[in-house]
């Protein structure tokens, strides 16, 4: 699932760098917030373990063998933010030293295997393991979480490939999901066997913030860094989602067309960015993205002003 260089176009690369950069920064902040100086050696050796574990081949039958991907495993054992950092390191080494995956697609690969897979695995595991009481009842949450994580990663990989126009979504989506549904079964089997073994032998190693804090919950960051991360994420999502924006009219416009009252619509002032496109002769994705980004910034400024107004110092005003 490692996308090589040259398979994604400029807007998908930029968009994934924005989203992945923001996600990486948030994970980094959460890990840095833990006062423990044990973090670096622990995460370092864990990434080495994941790297070595991915080279162990499991016989599936018929001479085919598969190997661990490890996103769900890492998120269950290290927690989501630690797992994201570990996956980023593993992907970087695989790309730089082993040419598995590319440099320009590094962010996209990190988005798939680091953020989407780890996030899905951790969410599913946490929501399902709420009802677990005992080592053997963890089997279903772990299995479902690891299967879902592989499937979510493949879905996001297919969307990225289709979004950059390499292959059409109709062609790539079904084979991608079917293949990874099968791969996910192997992943689920390996992860479940490993986690049940670990729970039996060393239950203290499973990430469990409710009981034992390996990483403390993130210290509140400054407002500016939150705004920057949010902005980067919004810009990235816009860049990634532009190719999927529908040329068809939305619901209200369709209704207006049907009832034939769009001719009655009058504009009171000319729209600054008509039809979500930026004036000038730039490629379509750039103009649409720029228009939406301008909209986002405008909305943010409005919201910020509103928040400032809400938080204005309340002085007792005496009517005179």
């Amino acid at each position: 699932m490692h996308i090589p260089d040259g398979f994604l176009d400029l807007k998908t690369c930029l968009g994934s760098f924005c989203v992945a950069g923001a996600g990486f920064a948030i994970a980094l902040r959460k890990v840095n917030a833990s006062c423990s100086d044990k973090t670096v050696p622990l995460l370092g050796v864990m990434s080495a373990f994941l790297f070595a574990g991915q080279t162990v081949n499991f016989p599936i039958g018929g001479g085919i063998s598969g190997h661990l991907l490890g996103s769900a495993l890492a998120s269950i054992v290290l927690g989501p933010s630690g797992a994201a950092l570990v996956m980023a390191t593993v992907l970087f080494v695989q790309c730089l030293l082993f040419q598995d995956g590319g440099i320009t697609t590094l962010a996209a690969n990190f988005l798939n295997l680091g953020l989407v897979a780890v996030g899905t695995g951790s969410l599913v595991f946490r929501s399902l393991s709420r009802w677990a009481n005992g080592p053997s009842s963890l089997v279903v949450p772990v299995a479902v979480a690891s299967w879902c994580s592989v499937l979510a990663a493949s879905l996001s990989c297919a969307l990225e490939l289709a979004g950059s126009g390499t292959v059409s979504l109709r062609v790539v989506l079904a084979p991608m999901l079917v293949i990874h549904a099968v791969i996910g079964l192997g992943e689920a089997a390996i992860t479940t066997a490993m986690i049940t073994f670990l729970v039996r032998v060393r239950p203290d190693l499973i990430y469990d913030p409710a009981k034992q804090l390996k990483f403390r919950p993130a210290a509140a960051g400054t407002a500016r860094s939150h705004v920057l991360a949010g902005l980067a994420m919004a810009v990235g999502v816009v860049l990634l989602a532009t190719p999927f924006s529908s040329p068809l009219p939305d619901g209200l416009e369709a209704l207006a067309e049907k009832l034939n009252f769009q001719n009655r619509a009058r504009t009171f002032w000319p729209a600054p960015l008509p039809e979500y496109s930026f004036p000038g002769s730039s490629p379509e994705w750039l103009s649409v993205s720029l228009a939406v980004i301008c909209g986002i910034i405008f909305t943010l400024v409005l919201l910020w002003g509103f928040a400032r107004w809400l938080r204005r110092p309340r002085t007792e005003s005496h009517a005179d």
Partner: protein
Amino acid sequence: MRIDGPFPTAAKERFGPRSPARRIVFAFAWVALIALLPARLWIWQLPSAFALIFVTRKLGVSFTALGKRTLLIWPFVGFTALGLLGQPEWHLRVGNLVLKAVLSIWILSLLTQTTSVIELIAGLRRLHFPAIWVELFAFLVRYASVLATEWNRMQLAREARTFHLPSRERWRLLAQSLGCLFIRAYERAERIHQAMLARGYR
């Protein structure tokens, strides 16, 4: 493959920028240029290809070694090519994908053939990559081969005890040994942490 310490470099002589940071930036920029060039302009990849042939000859790196580095991309290329079959201009698009992927891998292989891991880490620090990430990179490079050796030792010890893997339970037992390796890795991390503290870390 050993990834601790400097790479078994095949390069006869140094060529290009001396500082590893500059070499990293140069390689990444070149890869970005190749990977992001629109498909219609594929003819402009040819200067890059000729330059790469020249650099490879100058460095004395063998072309077969470089070819072996590209092995990992072919399943992905094949999968995408199958999806593109029958589309308009499919041969241009598939050829373009293959050209871009091979050239990018070529550049990155040349980078790792001429730059040892120690130099890479120094270069990444110099370029102000996030400090914790560079440290994790260094840890991974240092301990991946250690853990791989440990895995081989565990397998060897198990075989020495005349253990036979029953074919039905095989994957479960393999997963449990992987769990064992995980516990050993965790304990090693604790030991490393104590050793780092003993040497005055932070």
